[in-house]
């Protein structure tokens, strides 16, 4: 496969860690969905993990803050913490801008 093709077909595997349905987590999820629809249509998977129900998962991804968005694939792993209100920062963090050019 060609590198270019590969890049085109990359699937963004995103995990959003939250702790209950707080205002911050709701905002974060809404923001994330909006950015993905806009920039990564059909190329993303969002998994929401509620630490209140699965606390044992916090250590695995080194989660301290909530909400935390973890981008596992494509590499490198990046974490974005906060309610994702700054679109610019989120897009940089998810390496979305770089793939578009």
């Amino acid at each position: 496969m060609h590198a270019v093709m590969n890049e085109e077909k990359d699937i963004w595997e995103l995990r959003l860690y939250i702790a209950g349905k707080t205002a911050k987590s709701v905002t974060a999820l809404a923001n994330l969905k909006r950015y993905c629809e806009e920039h990564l249509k059909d190329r993303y998977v969002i998994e929401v993990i509620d630490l209140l129900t699965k606390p044992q998962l916090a250590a695995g991804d080194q989660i301290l803050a909530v909400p935390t968005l973890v981008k596992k694939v494509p590499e490198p792993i990046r974490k974005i913490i906060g309610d994702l209100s700054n679109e610019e920062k989120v897009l940089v963090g998810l390496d979305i801008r770089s793939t578009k050019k």
Partner: protein
Amino acid sequence: MSLNSSKQIKSSLPSLLKSPTGIPGLDEITGGGLPKGRPTLICGGTGCGKTLFSIEFIVRGAIEFNEPGVFMAFEEKTEELAANVASLGFDLDQLQKDERIKLDYVHIDRNEIEETGEYDLEGLFIRLGYAIDSIGAKRVVLDTIENLFANLNNEGILRSEIRRLFNWLKEKGVTTIITGEKGEGTLTRNGLEEYVSDCVILLDHRINNQISTRLLRIVKYRGSAHGTNEYPFLIDEDGLSVLPVTSLTLDHAVTTERISSGIPSLDKMLEGKGFYRGSSILVSGTAGTGKTSIAGSFAQATCQRGERCIYFAFEESPNQIVRNMRSIGFDLQVHIDAGLLQFHASRPTLNGLEMHLVTIHKLIREFKPQVVVVDPITNLITVGSISEVRSMLMRLIDFLQAEQITVVFTALSMNTVVGEQTDEGVSSLVDAWLLVRDIESNGERNRGMYIMKSRGMKHSNQVREFVITNEGLELVDVYLGAEGVLIGSAREAQQLQEATGVALRDHAVTRKDREVERKRLVLESKIASLREEFESVQEELNKAFVDEELRQAIMERNREQIIRNRHNDQ
């Protein structure tokens, strides 16, 4: 001391529960440990032992007090941590398997993290809460939470979250240690002390004259009395040990039991019984006066009684001392082999005074000797000022007296003017002070010894000549003659002279006796001849008398015969 001082510190009200650390000495200073169910801040510079302190708290809690603990590391990976403390005999992996402790390494990398908008640290709470609940932890360490400040930008959120974290930990009722790096002019770089109001302990690692000393100080302990001094502590193969600097009282028990000094003639100077058990004895003198020999003799006597002795040598190696003592008839090797005698030789410059003190304490607690020898204390001056040495020795004496251990110090006097020498100022602290000094006269040097003081007993005020022989040490009465005090060969000459005098006199007396005897014999024979003369005279006289009587009797008889005859004629 341990019991006494902790009793003194412990408040009478059982209001504040404490969680013992198990670190020797620390629980005495804090009166029982860290505040139970509350956070304690341990702060200090790099390499001061914060992490070790906290890991020991967790491990000892799990092993000794059956309180499982969670160690949340923000700096070191758990494997590194386990490897670092393996040298102390803490098997973290096994403890983790047994679910008695839980290590959690929190990794934050600034490079992988982007912050946008509002967030909180609920993830950390959940993670910690999960760890605590999974093993039923009673103790928690956060080492060091300040790392968050370096990796997260939003200080406002951090501060409020940390405050919330500590409150949350209090609510959970876990005893927590939070470590913090010392900052410029503040206890911690990020002002963690603002949030921990219950107990703050400061660790320090101070270098003075190239000698390092670790010190611990309780800055604050709300709701509890505590020692406020800087306490030296030691990190060695058994972990931390803290030394309470001064015992607070002078109420240790005393005994009237006496123990021999190993020199019979010295014992004789002390009412014939020797020193009190548990007393402190200083032997001071100029170079080469036999101080070490006296100390060795004391050690020898101790071991011969079947008691244990520990010998701290700051000048000579153990082998050297053993060899030298053999030359005066003490075989110390036997006692070493029998486990009664232990040598601990180190250069004074090995570590600071406080460290020496901690080491001495530790060895004494382990070996439990009845007698301790410190030879010599003078060398300690190379690592501290006179007042520091004095305060260290005072604490050592305090400790030993409380434990009823007899101690012999030797000290080298620099000047020969006796009486002005203060011997590191300990002479007022000790119970007995022997002074050995050179006496130079008639082209030779001899040793004189006297007892400067000996508390609580009559003691000889005589200067004795101190003689080191192949069979041991001896004190000889000096000769007091018309020319003053005679010692050494002068004394021996004097003694010889006296012996000669006695022989001569003896001889003279015998001659006189014989003459008298002869005179007596002559006189007695004279008396005999006189008596005989008297007897012959007496006999002569008697004879005349008897003759007269005879004649008269015969004449009487004749007359009667004549009368009878005449009557017959009628």
